[in-house]
């Protein structure tokens, strides 16, 4: 008898967990993720890239960040758990990658390779990264 109760309780718990998981998957908001990939060795340019991107997102995209439509993720690819990103996005140096996530799945991504052309100008760097983010945010609505 006691065993029967235990099994029932377990089944109910499992059903609740599955329901909660299904709800959370369905509720995952579509979003644009701005990845900044770096390694253990941080150069001056790498710090600039990080700061300029964070600054841009806090100023120009504050509303999108607050609503969860836009997210910044900074990852060290020298750490074991992040190594797969090197293959996933075919990275060859410190990089900023935009990822469009719809229904919990990445539907497209872009490696913003031109950031290296704009390292001498914060304004041009932010203009370029900002335009790319705008484009990806536009894709969210489609």
């Amino acid at each position: 008898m006691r065993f029967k109760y235990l099994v029932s309780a377990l089944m109910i718990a499992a059903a609740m967990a599955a329901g909660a998981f299904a709800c959370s998957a369905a509720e995952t908001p579509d979003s644009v993720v701005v990845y900044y990939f770096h390694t253990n060795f941080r150069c001056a340019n790498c710090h600039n890239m990080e700061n300029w991107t964070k600054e841009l997102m806090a100023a120009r995209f504050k509303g999108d960040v607050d609503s969860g439509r836009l997210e910044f993720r900074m990852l060290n690819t020298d750490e074991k758990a992040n190594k797969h990103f090197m293959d996933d996005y075919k990275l060859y140096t410190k990089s900023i990658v935009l990822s469009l996530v719809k229904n919990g799945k990445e539907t497209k991504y872009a490696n913003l390779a031109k950031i290296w052309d704009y390292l001498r100008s914060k304004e041009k760097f932010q203009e370029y990264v900002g335009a790319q983010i705008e484009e990806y945010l536009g894709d969210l609505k489609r």
Partner: protein
Amino acid sequence: MTLMLTALWLGILTSISPCPLATNIAAVSFISKTIVHPRAVFLSGLAYTLGRALAYTILGMLIIKSLLGISAVANFLQRYMNQALGPLLILAGAIMLDALKISMPSLSLSQRHQNRLAGSGLAGACALGAIFALAFCPLSAALFFGSLIPLAMNTPAGIGLPAIYGIGTALPVIIFSVGIAAGATTLSRWFGRITTFERYVRKATGAVFILVGVYYVLGHILHAI
């Protein structure tokens, strides 16, 4: 022609950025160590350029022929070449400063040979060029793997572009070295102390190598920078 100029410009752009500044300082110091002989400095600079051009050509060929994957090789070189560079430069610097003497039971190198091994010779300049070329920093990796290689892959004669890029990366270093040598020659002649001058420059090169080596150890092995 435009592609060749682009490759050259990418090389110059790499060289004048702060990213490879430490290795450029070591290279200028090494190339101009025969400072009162501008011709020797020039030849040493050419050997250094050849080393860089060769390294980029071989690497470029391996990638273009799909023998190596861009991501894997780029990350391997950035990680391990830079880690190896620190101890290597400290060792070479110590030999140049005579702080370290190499002696093995079966192979004993005289002081003269030791000096030649670490501190002179066109082969040394060529090897230095190749090693420094392969020790990619974030910017040189971005320009080489991200801009030059795609350019070379989409062009029939693209296989020659990495060599031109290599020349571009060495050009500012050579111009600087020859300029210093020309100035120093005039200076040392004024003071009439050519031999003393050259000895000090050689020691200074050893010290520069050790400092740059320490910088690489701190940055790439200890991650303290």
